[in-house]
């Protein structure tokens, strides 16, 4: 997309007047991050046995799958040759970080689908053996892969496999999103991106966003779908998890910027100009002060000052904190992807990019893609029913 050359500050290379990666590349790491984050929430129950996360464990898996399926779509929309997109999987260039993502993606998809299949085994067989003919029964019969054995012995094996897959899934999910950070961090041409800390920052912000999203989904499910109170233990577990990861995430993000300024490398004045000229609103105010500061203070209050507060207050404040975190992480992706391109590789100037709504790479399509995983999750839930199981357990 061409940028307004009259808004260029300093000097940019002539070819840089055309922004190459727009909103699609902003939501690509955002969605991938939610995949990893949702899986981590599930793993807290499946692997570490934290019972507080049981109500959202299975939903997290379905949510993770929904986001995983959609996460390649922004890339696909971004390509000019959409039909050649599959070449990245079939004839990858082994030296390319982006091509490597194809392998990481397929591996994680494989693990996640297997994990879901084993995790929902009882549900699948139960639905397949339903006496009332329906589309759900038809689909679930296919999903049984011909085996209806849910005896105690068989289920013992299934639980073992589920646990093993969840263990394998944690590093896989972390690697998936850490790798997205590596795709940006390995571009040495761009001093706003080129950092060894980038994969860690991406990964930590992914977990933070995933935890926040799962809390919001848990709230929606309790209030609007199941119409039952949220469990205080689960709310508290979410508060602790979000607060813990948010602290580490903010420390790493601060360290990255501190490193650039303290080391005072060749790019430092240019990065300072970028923050001052182009990212004052979205980075300093949006991401750092409001997006991160507000939830940090809320969580600090909940953990430190108001540990005795009642469930309603805690869940309300946590909901606000989660919404701020989701907004902050989206802004973080924007500031990395768009901000990085607003800094000229000549290190002599910056320019301003205004997002557009209407194109196939615009905000409108982006919002649709951000909603699509939730639609997929609802469809998966209709077939695999993560709720009934949870209700039984809670009773």
């Amino acid at each position: 997309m061409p940028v307004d050359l009259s808004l260029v500050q300093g000097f940019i290379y002539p070819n840089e007047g055309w922004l190459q990666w727009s909103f699609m590349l902003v939501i690509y790491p955002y969605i991938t991050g939610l995949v990893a984050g949702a899986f981590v929430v599930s793993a807290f129950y499946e692997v570490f046995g934290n019972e507080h996360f049981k109500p959202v464990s299975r939903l997290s898996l379905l949510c993770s799958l929904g986001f995983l399926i959609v996460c390649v779509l922004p890339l696909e929309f971004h390509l000019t040759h959409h039909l050649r997109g599959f070449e990245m999987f079939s004839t990858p260039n082994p030296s390319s970080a982006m091509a490597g993502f194809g392998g990481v993606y397929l591996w994680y998809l494989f693990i996640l689908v297997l994990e879901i299949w084993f995790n929902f085994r009882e549900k699948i067989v139960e639905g397949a053996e339903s006496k009332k003919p329906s589309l759900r029964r038809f689909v679930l019969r296919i999903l049984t892969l011909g085996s209806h054995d849910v005896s105690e012995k068989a289920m013992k094996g299934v639980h073992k496999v589920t646990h093993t897959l969840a263990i394998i899934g944690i590093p896989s999910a972390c690697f998936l999103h850490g790798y997205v950070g590596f795709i940006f961090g390995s571009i040495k041409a761009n001093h706003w991106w080129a950092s060894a800390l980038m994969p860690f920052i991406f990964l930590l912000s992914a977990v933070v966003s995933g935890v926040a999203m799962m809390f919001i989904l848990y709230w929606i499910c309790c209030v609007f779908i199941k119409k039952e109170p949220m469990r205080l233990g689960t709310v508290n577990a979410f508060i602790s998890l979000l607060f813990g990861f948010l602290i580490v995430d903010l420390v790493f993000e601060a360290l990255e910027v501190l490193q650039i300024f303290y080391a005072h490398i060749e790019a430092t004045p240019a990065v300072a100009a970028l923050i001052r000229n182009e990212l004052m609103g979205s980075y300093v105010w949006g991401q750092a002060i409001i997006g991160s500061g507000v939830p940090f203070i809320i969580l600090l209050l909940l953990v430190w000052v108001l540990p005795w507060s009642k469930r309603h207050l805690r869940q309300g404040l946590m909901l606000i904190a989660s919404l701020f975190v989701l907004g902050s992480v989206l802004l973080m992706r924007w500031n990395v992807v768009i901000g990085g391109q607003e800094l000229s590789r000549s290190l002599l100037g910056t320019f301003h990019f205004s997002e557009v709504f209407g194109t196939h790479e615009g905000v409108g399509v982006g919002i649709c893609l951000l909603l699509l995983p939730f639609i997929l999750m609802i469809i998966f839930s209709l077939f695999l029913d993560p709720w009934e199981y949870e209700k039984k357990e809670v009773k």
Partner: protein
Amino acid sequence: MKRRDFIKATGTVTLAAGVYLTVLKPSPVNAKEEKDWLNGYDWNKHYWGFGIDSTKCIGCGSCVRACKEENDVPKDPYHFRCWVERYAHLKGEEKPKVDSPNGGYNSFPDKYKKEEVLKAFFVPKLCNQCAVPPCVQVCPVGATYQTKDGVVLVDNDYCIGCRYCISACPFGARYMNDEAGCADKCTWCYHRITKGLEPACVLACPVGARIFGDLKDENSEINKFIEEHKIITLKPDLGCEAKVAYVGIDSEVR
């Protein structure tokens, strides 16, 4: 079919498809096609080099215009295979003023008329055909590649249009060819040099500021240029090993 058999069969088919697609799939460019495409030109016998004598450049923009004509580069201010930058040190200013209006296509307006210019020079830019090219490294499908005679090219039949290479080029030498939907860049006029001709920009330069030749030929102009001058290359710290040799520019040029 038992579940175990079904899983076995599915696994075998998936594995076989994976092996075929990633390992056994024949390359679409075979040796014969490659030979035909090069039309008898042997890229093993050449290794091309480029030099810029900034002390000679007058910023006329002939090279930019010739390049755009020769290579069908869009004539807007966003797409350039080669361009010219102006560095001007003004009295009272700590850092030089740098500009490149429309890439130097229409030459440079005398905008420092009222200032006291301490020093000024023009820097013609083009693809550095790096020896360790980051664009080749990052291309997810291998559409951009390095030829044996040292030039980096883009295969339009392969490029998927992800623009990773454009973001990875430290010199801003790449752009998106909207017509082909592929990344595009300076090729040192590969279609000309493989026929024994000079690149269009070299031919168009009225002052001989651009020097091109075969580094494998001991008597070539480029070898003489490198032997007779103290040269520098751009951004050596990035490890790309840029190959365009510059004379007469300050170290602040990036």
